[in-house]
């Protein structure tokens, strides 16, 4: 049993190593904290590096590329105007593969490359994973697309979120169903996952106090394209209006809109905020889905957006680069660069805290999405417009005002 003695000796040595390494270090000042001393901190000359973390491979790869293109286009526009603090912007993009572990690697790499800010994101779990890394590295994070409620006010006290969350979607739908359509009973067509269930629960919480009954609740899978069974169940329940939450932009939602229009259900169909893009209308057969209601925060070619000079510039440059009209996600990408650049100019600094303070609770005028303001928690508030489909085209109806507390959740 001499072997055991050797092990004891080795164990003792490791113990000693553990103890030398394990001397208390809690008294010293935190490294990489607010001072931004962690890692290779950004240099004070040369271009300003702007980190972007989006999925560039896998199923969400094309979406991430779109957001990245928009960020690049807007950075070029900012550079043409002289950059920020007299320095040019340089975009450094990393692929998160829609995977939190890779997102963390990407954030660590960007921190070591000395970026001044990290923007982007497509999947909420990736954003939640990179928040602590960037907080420790002293780098500001601007969340462009993910809309999870826990992004604000948790791991990152200075979080900035641009997209509207589910609470806004449910609020707008609730307002439209009760105020504009005056419905007394509503049928639900919900995606059978966190997104659909969440929207349904939030909407019910609004409809119940208003005395509106939920006549029928039908669910379907994200990948579903045949809705005849849920639609005939809805028809049987005869509600005065129908609310749908289907985020499958390229298959499920166009099919649902088309099959609803053909089903002979007389009640108006109100689709959740952001689920009816021009692409959905085209795929559903254009004028075939006339009368469909929905809401969104950006339309490139429709009033009032086509009247904003910043939007015209961005949309033209984006078309030139990609050959396509920018959608809402591209606009949010551009908006993140625009807001950050304006905040840096206002703060006169690239550091995390001053720039965050120049965004939280502040208003930015004349941006790609018009005039926008931020809540104290860091959520961007934009104008939300209800719209309908008329002759196969989007026709913007009215703005639906949304209170700040709804935006924050």
């Amino acid at each position, binding site marked *: 049993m001499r072997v055991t003695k050797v092990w004891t000796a080795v164990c003792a040595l490791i113990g000693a190593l553990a103890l030398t390494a394990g001397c208390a*270090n*809690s008294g010293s000042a935190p*490294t990489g904290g607010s001072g931004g001393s962690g*890692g290779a901190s950004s240099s004070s000359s040369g271009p300003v590096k702007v980190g972007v973390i989006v999925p560039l491979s896998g199923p969400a790869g094309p979406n991430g590329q779109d957001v990245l293109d928009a960020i690049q286009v807007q950075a070029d526009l900012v550079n043409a105007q002289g950059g920020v603090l007299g320095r040019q912007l340089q975009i450094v993009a990393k692929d998160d593969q829609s995977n939190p572990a890779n997102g963390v690697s990407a954030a660590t790499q960007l921190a070591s490359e000395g970026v001044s800010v990290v923007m982007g994101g497509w999947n909420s779990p990736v954003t939640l994973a990179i928040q602590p890394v960037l907080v420790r590295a002293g780098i500001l994070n601007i969340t462009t697309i993910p809309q999870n409620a826990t992004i604000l006010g*948790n791991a990152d006290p200075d979080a900035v979120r641009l997209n509207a969350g589910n609470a806004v979607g449910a609020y707008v739908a609730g307002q439209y169903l009760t105020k504009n359509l005056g419905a007394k009973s509503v049928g639900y067509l919900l995606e059978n996952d966190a997104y659909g269930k969440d929207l349904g629960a939030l909407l019910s919480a609004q409809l119940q106090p208003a005395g509106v009954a939920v006549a029928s609740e039908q669910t379907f899978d994200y990948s579903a394209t045949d809705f005849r069974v849920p639609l005939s169940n809805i028809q049987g329940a005869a509600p005065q209006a129908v609310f749908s939450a289907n985020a499958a932009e390229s298959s499920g939602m166009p099919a649902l809109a088309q099959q609803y229009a053909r089903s002979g259900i007389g009640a108006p169909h109100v689709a959740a905020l952001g689920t009816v893009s021009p692409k959905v209308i085209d795929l559903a057969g254009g004028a075939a889905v006339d009368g469909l209601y929905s809401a969104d925060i950006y339309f490139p070619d429709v009033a009032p957006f086509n009247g904003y000079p910043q939007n015209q510039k961005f949309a033209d440059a984006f078309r030139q680069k990609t050959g396509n009209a920018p959608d809402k996600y591209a606009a949010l990408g551009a908006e993140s660069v625009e807001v950050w650049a304006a905040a840096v100019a206002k703060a006169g600094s690239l550091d995390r805290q001053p720039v965050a303070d120049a965004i939280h609770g502040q208003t930015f005028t004349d941006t790609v999405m018009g005039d926008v303001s931020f809540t104290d928690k860091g959520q961007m508030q934009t104008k939300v417009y209800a719209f309908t489909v008329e002759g196969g085209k989007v026709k913007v109806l009215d703005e639906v005002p949304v209170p700040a507390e709804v935006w924050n959740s």
Partner: protein
Amino acid sequence: MTADLATRETTGAPAARRVPTPLRALLWVVLVALAYLLPTLLGGSDRIYTTVVLVAIFAIMSYGVDVVLSYLGEVSLGHTLFWAAGAYTTAILAVRSGWSPIPALLASVVVTVVLALLLGLATLRTREFVFSLVTYAAAIIGLTVVQNTTALGGSDGVVGVPLLELPAFGGTYVARTNAELWPIALVCLVLVVLLVSRFRRSRLGTTALMAQMNGELSTAMGVDVRRTRVLVFVLSAPITALAGWLYAYQRSYVSPDLLSPTFLLFMLTAVILPGRRLLLGPLVGAALLTSQQQLASLGGDADKIVLGGVLAVVLLASPTGLVGIWHALVRRVRGSRR
């Protein structure tokens, strides 16, 4: 293939014993000291420290699978369950109940041992393909349960795991950065290597190997094969859970992606690529894979193709992994000299 491995094992053992024991111990100590200084020698940047910490964590994770794969001869596709159980138990106890790291680690070990015992008993009569399938089914069930259970954070996961803080002389040692986490990760790794090394020589380890080589013979010799299988399986789980514990603090966020095939493929490849039944095999495998992904990444899709391609080529060329290719080369060189 197994016969080939067995001869290598038996011929390798006396050769190793030729080195006097105190010298071997000294060699190990030097190796550990070198490992400790490695990130400093490589420049000591944040990126290097992140890479070495991840290598240590992923190596520990892979050692759990290694114990089952190399010594029991079964491919467990359910070890992501223990990896996630370690990380989730830690994250939930630390975030919601304010537990400190050591009690959270103990709780993680208890949870994974219970899980492993259940899964081990459930797979008692299964072998090979069926064993793999049942363990995989367990991992899929785990993923679905975690994604749909609000108490476990659902698809959002658990946010805001605090910093790893351990009691030390004169107060506490706080791992704020990967550089400060490195000593802790290294100690965990060395302890796991010691444990696996001890296991290889133990009665349980040799019995497991014997049961793998010839189950009927070992039964005839009075070995309780089923008991051995369950014990080895239960031993492997807390090793992987220890990695999950570290990972929860390192990433400060746990989500259902821990149960994704990414980590499953990683741990299997880390064991199989260098060659099974090598004490430092999983460490070498984890180091190769992590360094490629962290320091020489070719992009998401290309990385996956490289990983799958390398694994396929190595296994086609030599079923015993890189070490088998090395042995073949050595034999050829020696042969040509004669």
